[in-house]
């Protein structure tokens, strides 16, 4: 296995990691500030992808499609927050799990009702398509590089937002002490809606960005949702930094596990068994990673509260 291939796989892991971060950041923010477990976060991802595909289909513009994804997901977020979610902040986790599970059912079936059962078309814009040659002679798709760039840019923007702005102060206050926000004279319910919309928009953006290289279909958010949960649990729930570290870890584990585990097993098993066993273990790798993290650090890598 050549160095070039390994570098390329690391890039791939990084790319899926930063996209996962977009999902995980919203999820962890919503939990950190409002204490809410939002299973419907994957539905917002799906909403973003469908909005992007619909707008790209009409206008042909990828940028407009991304804007539409952000807007649609944020709007869906605001709608859901005001109608349902805000009644759940005081409820226990059990009620939150059930209510947002119900929202998944409604979102999925509703999307099917509107868009039908066939996958939609969303493609990479021509100005981002095709491979580029990186130093060292690595051929790598430009779009995936753009995804890495976009993901890191969003991470940076989030950091600035939270550490350097007035809203960020309020959000951090919300994570630590609810009474303090009230003392700061902040309208709590507005802040909560804003945070939820922000998380939703990030999920929608991820859905649109990833939708261009995947299949835009009903149910596309569920596998990502579970991975995003694994991510924030590994990172420590409520911590944006943890979400970032967790996302990169999960992305790398998944990508590198699926490539190298079969190779590893081939050293001491016959090829067919090695391939099958390696593939199964690669499927389980992130869950094993998460269990190990929790067994040794029950509040995640960067979790403050137990």
């Amino acid at each position, binding site marked *: 296995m050549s160095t070039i291939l390994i570098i390329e796989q690391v890039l791939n892991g990084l790319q899926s990691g930063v996209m996962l971060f977009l999902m995980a950041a919203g999820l962890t923010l919503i*939990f950190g500030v409002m204490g809410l*477990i939002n299973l419907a976060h994957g539905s917002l991802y799906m909403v973003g992808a469908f909005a992007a595909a619909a707008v790209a289909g009409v206008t042909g513009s990828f940028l407009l499609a991304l804007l539409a994804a952000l807007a649609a997901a944020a709007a869906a977020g605001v709608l859901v927050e005001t109608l*349902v979610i805000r*009644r*759940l902040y005081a*409820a226990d*986790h*059990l*009620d939150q*799990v*059930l*209510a947002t*599970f*119900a*929202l*998944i*059912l*409604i979102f*999925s*079936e*509703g999307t*099917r*009702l509107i868009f039908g059962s066939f996958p939609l078309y969303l493609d990479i814009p021509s100005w981002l398509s095709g491979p580029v040659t990186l130093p060292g002679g690595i051929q790598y798709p430009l779009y995936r590089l753009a995804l890495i760039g976009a993901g890191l840019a969003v991470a940076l923007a989030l950091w600035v937002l939270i550490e350097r702005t007035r809203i960020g102060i309020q959000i951090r206050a919300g994570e630590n002490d609810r009474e303090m926000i009230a003392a700061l004279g902040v309208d709590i319910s507005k802040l909560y809606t804003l945070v939820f919309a922000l998380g939703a928009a990030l999920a929608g953006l991820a859905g649109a960005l990833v939708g261009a290289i995947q299949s835009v279909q009903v149910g596309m958010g569920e596998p990502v949702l*579970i991975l995003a*949960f*694994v991510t924030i*649990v590994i990172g420590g*729930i409520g911590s944006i930094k943890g979400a970032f570290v967790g996302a990169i870890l999960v992305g790398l584990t998944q990508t590198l596990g699926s490539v190298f585990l079969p190779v590893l097993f081939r050293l001491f098993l016959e090829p067919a068994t090695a391939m*099958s066993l390696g*593939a*199964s273990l690669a*499927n*389980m790798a992130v*869950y*094993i990673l*998460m*269990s190990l993290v*929790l*067994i040794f650090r*029950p*509040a*995640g890598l960067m979790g403050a509260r*137990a």
Partner: protein
Amino acid sequence: MIRESYLNAALLAGLLAVPLYALVVDEPFTITLATRAAILALAAVGLNIALGWGGLVSFGHAAFFGIGGYSMGILAFHAQNFVPLDLGIMVFDGTKSMPIIWLVAVLASALAALLIGLLSLRTSGVYFIMITLAFAQMFYYFAISWARYGGEDGIPIYVRNDFPGLNTLVPIQFFGICFVALLLALWLNARLVASPFGLALNAARQVPVRVQTVGLDPTRLKLVAFVMSGAITGLAGALFADLNRFVSPSMFSWHLSGELIVLIILGGVGRLMGPVLGAVMFVALEHWLGGLTTHWHIALGAILLGVVLFARGGLIGLLCGPRGQT
């Protein structure tokens, strides 16, 4: 407000009467539906011990349901195909006998619950929810790629397994088996709640620190509850597999874990008959709404939302008042 004990009696009587009526009017499918409700109720009774009394929100009980199912699938697979099961230390022909299958299912899922519980109980809250989910996902992916037992395709069992003295292929007889299993589990549950252990467990859920200061270890209490819970859900898995004469990785899916939680909340958390009412409602809705429109998930979602937002404590809470009132 209705007395909870009256409601409980009416529910059980109803669950028994519907299939008997169906038998009279020759509607065997209704019996099948009632059997399904009884088995799902049994699985949820198991989960309710951990969730309702132990306060352990397990989002991975599909693991035990699936282990129960695969216990049945693997044993019956070897028996029906006449391929001995080589365990390394001993060779076993497999079996088509339900009692043996149940024993294996209960022991295997209890063992799994012990291991998962030991590790998961180091965490709490959301972390516990997620780590149990992670363990169930591991089983799911393992089952999918376990080629020997059909992987994603699962294991079809051509003829339902045997129970001494009964013809299990007759729907009403198989319903009887499942109904009795449910009654036994409910009885066990009722005794458990009134026992010293039940009192301690119930307190461990509400105020773990108090339980510690009287010299008990809440984590150990919860672990024991988790093991019992897993064992009962495992038994339900074995029965479910026999109802369908089929086992597949979907028994391990996170949707199933979610559905079991839904059943309990729908009926009422920590109520003896909550899982039964929830399962009956769920199966009825699935059948009735599913017959009306293919988009019935929207309606189901709306109903669940309604329960969470407006009927805290589930249907039993709505009918009989909040939990713990005597």
